[in-house]
């Protein structure tokens, strides 16, 4: 019996809990991508670096606050700095839209042009972030590290395995849930949210109704900036802030958005968790897990790891390819690409 419990705990500790946090981060990122795709009708390759930019501003403000002795106690100071990050990113993204995307929108350029333009924007943002904060890891997390540490858990339960729950993991999930609820409330209930859905649904008709396209586009960018910054900061708190990792996140985030059904916000969330759990489950070494379950004679010698962690991005890529082949619209039907 204790063996089974130990197996469950070790699985929860290394797969369930980290996967939930990572899934929430991917889901927030995929929501931003899906929103751009639905409202502005292109795949935004600059989204990863928008996250990096938002996280960077938040890191800088957090440092400034820490320097002045501002603190939230057990919660990370970054939460206080988050609104500043969102505001700065919104301004930056709106300026980009004014200078770059608006020109192509007026030209009624094809979506593929927008995609290439967004690649250009990506490189610029990439450079800006590295120029300001540098390419290295930055530490900005403070507050309590653990809600439950592995040792406390072991002492509490008397089991061999410990379940550590990082405070950032719980924080990620709570913040992500709040942000998603707010987003859905906005899209379903408010006048502007409905106008945005109308615009995403049928642009021609929206132009022939009272929907103001400039305003819809502006609010969409603000939402995207907010989602990207929140996702970026949560990821940074949970792991570490490094500009390049956000660029790497682009693939799993796109995979999440497409697997769930691009253009569909519920799909983006679902896709985020599908990708996150696949990645974690496939790259996890099951040796200890199986060691608890199997009799000693059968206990595995090797790591029992399907894929090395360095290949984790291949997982999202494979899922992406399979979904595009079998069900191109995604799990919940989105727009076909």
């Amino acid at each position, binding site marked *: 019996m204790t063996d089974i419990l130990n197996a469950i705990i070790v699985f929860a500790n290394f797969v369930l809990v980290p996967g939930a946090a990572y899934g929430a981060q991917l889901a927030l990122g995929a929501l931003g991508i899906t929103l751009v795709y639905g409202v502005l009708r292109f795949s935004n390759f600059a989204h990863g670096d928008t996250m990096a930019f938002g996280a960077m501003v938040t890191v800088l403000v957090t440092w400034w606050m820490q320097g002045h002795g501002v603190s939230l106690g057990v919660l990370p100071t970054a939460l206080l700095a988050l609104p500043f990050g969102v505001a700065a990113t919104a301004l930056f993204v709106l300026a980009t839209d004014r200078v770059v995307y608006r020109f192509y929108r007026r030209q009624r350029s094809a979506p593929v042009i927008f995609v290439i333009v967004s690649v250009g924007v990506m490189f610029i943002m990439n450079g800006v972030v590295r120029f300001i904060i540098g390419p290295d890891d930055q530490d900005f997390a403070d507050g309590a590290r653990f809600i439950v540490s592995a040792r406390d858990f072991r002492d509490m339960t008397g089991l061999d395995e410990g379940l550590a729950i990082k405070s950032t993991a719980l924080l990620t999930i709570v913040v992500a849930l709040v942000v998603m609820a707010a987003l859905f409330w906005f899209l379903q209930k408010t006048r502007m949210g409905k106008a945005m859905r*109308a615009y995403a649904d049928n642009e021609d008709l929206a*132009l022939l*109704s009272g929907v103001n396209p400039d305003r819809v586009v502006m609010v969409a960018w603000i939402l995207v900036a907010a989602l990207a910054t929140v996702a970026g900061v949560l990821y940074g708190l949970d792991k570490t802030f490094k500009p390049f990792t956000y660029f790497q996140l682009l693939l799993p985030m796109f995979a999440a958005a497409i697997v769930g059904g691009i253009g569909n916000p519920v799909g983006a969330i679902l896709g985020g968790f599908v990708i996150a759990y696949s990645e974690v489950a496939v790259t996890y070494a099951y040796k200890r897990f199986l060691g608890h379950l199997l009799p000693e004679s059968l206990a595995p010698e090797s790591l029992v790891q399907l894929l090395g962690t360095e290949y984790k991005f291949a997982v999202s890529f494979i899922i992406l390819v399979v979904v595009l082949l079998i069900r191109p619209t995604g799990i919940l039907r989105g727009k076909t690409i």
Partner: protein
Amino acid sequence: MIRVENVHKHFGGVRAVNGATLEIAQGSITGLIGPNGAGKTTLFNCIAGAFPPTSGRVWLGEEEITGLTPHELFAKGLLRTFQIAHEFSSLTVRDNLMMVPPDQSGERLWDAWFSPRKVQAEEAAIRRKADEVIEFLNISHVADELAGNLSGGQKKLLELGRTMMVEAKIVFLDEVGAGVNRTLLNTIGDAIIRLNKERGYTFCMIEHDMDFIGRLCDPVIVMAEGTVLMQGTAEQVLSDERVIEAYLGHGVKNKAEVGG
């Protein structure tokens, strides 16, 4: 009300509209007929701003509106419906209608955050209006249905309903009766006449159903091969030899030559 002066629209080598000149009188229900490919919808698109004409000018009253965008024309009271009904498929019928009035305060961030009372009052007024329109069009039973689930005919009614949500000056109807059964067609016809009489809407409609045209339209303008062939009452037009020829094609006379 609307004056179209020598409008051309070319797509590459195709001269879809080739020097159309016509006038739509205030308060009229003008019919626009012609065989397929005569350039009716293209002319509509030029007037309603879907794309600018290659050359020529369009006037609304005393004001030139050539090349304005649909959004700008909407603000001036020029509305249109589509040949294939457009709707916001993921919104309810009522929300579809409520989307129409422009510049609602709920769309402004400032008002949405800081004066929710004003936004609510305005929204309630628009909702009442939408319910009136729903009542008028006799579609109360589907008011809370997603517009994407409506039948083709109901979507056409919804198209017409959208034009009733604002004070329009002129409405362009592109085959509002196509693919609609007789009963529904009569409902649509009644609605058009009432809007014309009671609210002074001017209509210009592309239509293929001659009974429908005969009942509603005066005058009727006939287009063929990108230009205006003639204008007159429905009876005059339908008995005119040129019109019959345009519809049935030159092939009737020279069948052997064309090769059947």
